[in-house]
């Protein structure tokens, strides 16, 4: 690799590592504070799965769109969603990204191109395709990344949305985080043995990829290529990222009695933060001084977000009936 390319590549990797570490620390802070019972909404943590979000969003701009699901924290943050607004939303405060109306399951940050995340499985797949369609109708060439879990590929609307995206050659990337579980139901109870999702998707006509969801650097390179190609010639792409969440489906606790301890241990051995940290240190793109500085900067941000959220007010009572309709201008 030429020196210039090496420097560019190392910059991207270090920046991505910073984003990965940041998301991890934010999620850990939310999980730790949750027991104080002041964040009173269901939370679905991304701990263990964050690298997929970071890699998928790294080469996107604010003009590109993202839609997401109940497990949206990492996607929201990776796309550049405001941290203060996120934490305030968990606390139900007026300064939350959804004004306190939505909580963790209904996030949006339009400035960052994060259009919305909702908890009905499969619902945002078609909405994301629609955003890409709307962009195309207006001759915009931005990209839409649609995050979904592997469970959502069991919904009929997934195939309907894929069909439409292909029919209209939309600039859509379906990023499927396969974390093997739909709540606590494992994949083998939901899928016929030998069913190959990538074959199904390819038979529709889409390009399909499989990625190791815990290897940030490898995913970064692949997403860079895919996104660059997408900017030249829009075409739907389906990416299955094999990954894992450490915590329970909903809530801050471990889930030792519902999934096997050995399985969780196995996945933790391939923790994306650890893997990337070691790799970048080994390649001399990162020093322990850097990492320490990162941790401190991140912690300051987190402290500020929690402090502001706790200080902020609840929305005024009149807000209850506000925003049912948008006022006609």
């Amino acid at each position, binding site marked *: 690799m030429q020196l210039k390319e090496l420097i560019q590549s190392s910059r991207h990797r270090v920046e991505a590592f910073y984003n990965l570490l940041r998301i991890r620390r934010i999620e850990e802070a939310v999980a730790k504070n949750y027991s104080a019972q002041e964040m009173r909404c269901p939370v679905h943590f991304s701990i263990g799965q964050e690298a997929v979000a970071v890699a998928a969003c790294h080469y996107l701009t604010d003009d590109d*769109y993202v*839609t997401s699901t109940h497990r949206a924290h990492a996607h929201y943050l990776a796309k550049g969603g405001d941290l203060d607004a996120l934490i305030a939303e968990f606390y139900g405060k007026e300064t*939350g*990204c*959804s*004004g*306190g*109306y*939505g909580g963790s399951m*209904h996030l*949006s940050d*339009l400035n960052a191109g994060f*259009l*919305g995340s*909702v908890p*009905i499985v499969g*619902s*945002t*797949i*078609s*909405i*994301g*395709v*629609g*955003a*890409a*369609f*709307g*962009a195309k*109708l*207006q001759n915009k060439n931005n990209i839409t990344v649609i995050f979904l879990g592997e469970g959502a590929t069991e919904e*009929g*609307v997934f195939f*309907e*949305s894929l*069909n*439409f995206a292909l*029919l209209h050659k939309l600039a859509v990337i379906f990023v499927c985080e396969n974390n093997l579980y739909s709540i606590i139901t494992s994949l083998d109870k939901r899928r016929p043995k030998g069913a190959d999702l990538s074959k199904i998707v390819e038979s529709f006509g889409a390009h399909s990829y499989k990625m190791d969801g815990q290897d940030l650097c490898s995913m970064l390179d692949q997403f860079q290529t895919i996104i660059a190609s997408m900017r030249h010639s829009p075409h739907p792409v389906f990416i299955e990222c094999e990954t894992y969440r450490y915590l329970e489906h909903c809530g801050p606790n471990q889930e030792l009695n519902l999934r096997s301890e050995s399985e969780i241990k196995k996945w933790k051995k391939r923790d994306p933060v650890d893997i990337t940290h070691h790799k970048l240190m080994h390649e001399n793109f990162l020093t322990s001084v850097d990492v320490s500085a990162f941790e401190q900067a991140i912690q300051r941000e987190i402290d500020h977000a929690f402090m502001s959220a706790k200080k902020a007010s609840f929305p005024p009572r009149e807000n209850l009936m*506000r*925003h*049912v*309709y*948008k006022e*006609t*201008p």
Partner: protein
Amino acid sequence: MKKTRFDTAICDALNESMLRDDRVIVIGQGVPDASQTYGTTKGLVDTFGDKRVMEMPVAEASMVGIMLGAALVGIKPVMVFARMEFAMLAMDQIVNQAAKWHYMFGGKSCVPLVLRLIVGRGWGQGAQHSQSLHNWFTHIPGLKVVAPATAYDAKGLLISSIEDPNPVIFIEHRWLHYTTSLIPKDAYTVPLGVPNLIKKGPDASVVSSSYATLDALKASEILAKDGIHIDIIDLRTLTPLNDEIILESVKKTGRLIVCDQGTLTSGFAAEIISRVTEKAFTYLKEPPVRITLPDCPSPTTRGLANYYYPMPEHIVNAVKKSHKKSVIDPYANVNASDYLDIPNKSFTGPF
């Protein structure tokens, strides 16, 4: 002023809206094809091209979501369901997503989406091609539900619905497509949220919408022959409901008859009667009456369907009964073989 059919008026509204605003698109099964959605999208694809007047895959659930997504980023879709029942597949997107998007994200984005839901009737279309489920949508905060009864209102309300930044359910009764109004040449709109007092009289307040308004108008002509004159309040917008005109009328007449083209239990007539009872109880001289479909699905045989749909005579009877006048059951003169299953005498099936 020009005598214009309801279906042409719908088409004119789409045409004008699309001319005025580049962001408006029309999509639905059969929208650009030879059937032209019963004439309501006639010629649009020739004028605006197939990127704005579009066909869609047979995938209602995702398509409403796709139109929602497009609406979020600047498009104003008008989606057509040739039969209301097909929209049932999209209830998640309509009820969980479109209706609530503006509220649950704190007012930051909106969904300017219009869904034209066409209500079928007659010619044995039966249980799944004859429903008017407008009341379901009135129950969902965040949706607006609009139901024109005349060609004039159809055009004006559709234009306003397209301009509205909220998701609007546009209830369109198929049998109304053949009716005509005088429509001005120049542009006009009919505002959402304003019922219309279309007949004045002291003897009863008849509240109706969509096809039931046609029945109410026929009833008022029959009653007038006996010197009985009624107020008819054509709702035009079901939600948000402005009940002022209704309350004013009931305070004058003391007699309320609500005509709704849905089934009885939990129908929209129940909402009107509740409001009037809450707000004008002491003005009521007689118990309120609802005239609706019975609580059963639509049968296909005219042998049964002839006794399924209320007739103008039912409204006449309700008004007369509220004045203690004697009445005869209108179905007494109906035979199983009668051809009541068509919108007008010149219609030949099928739909």
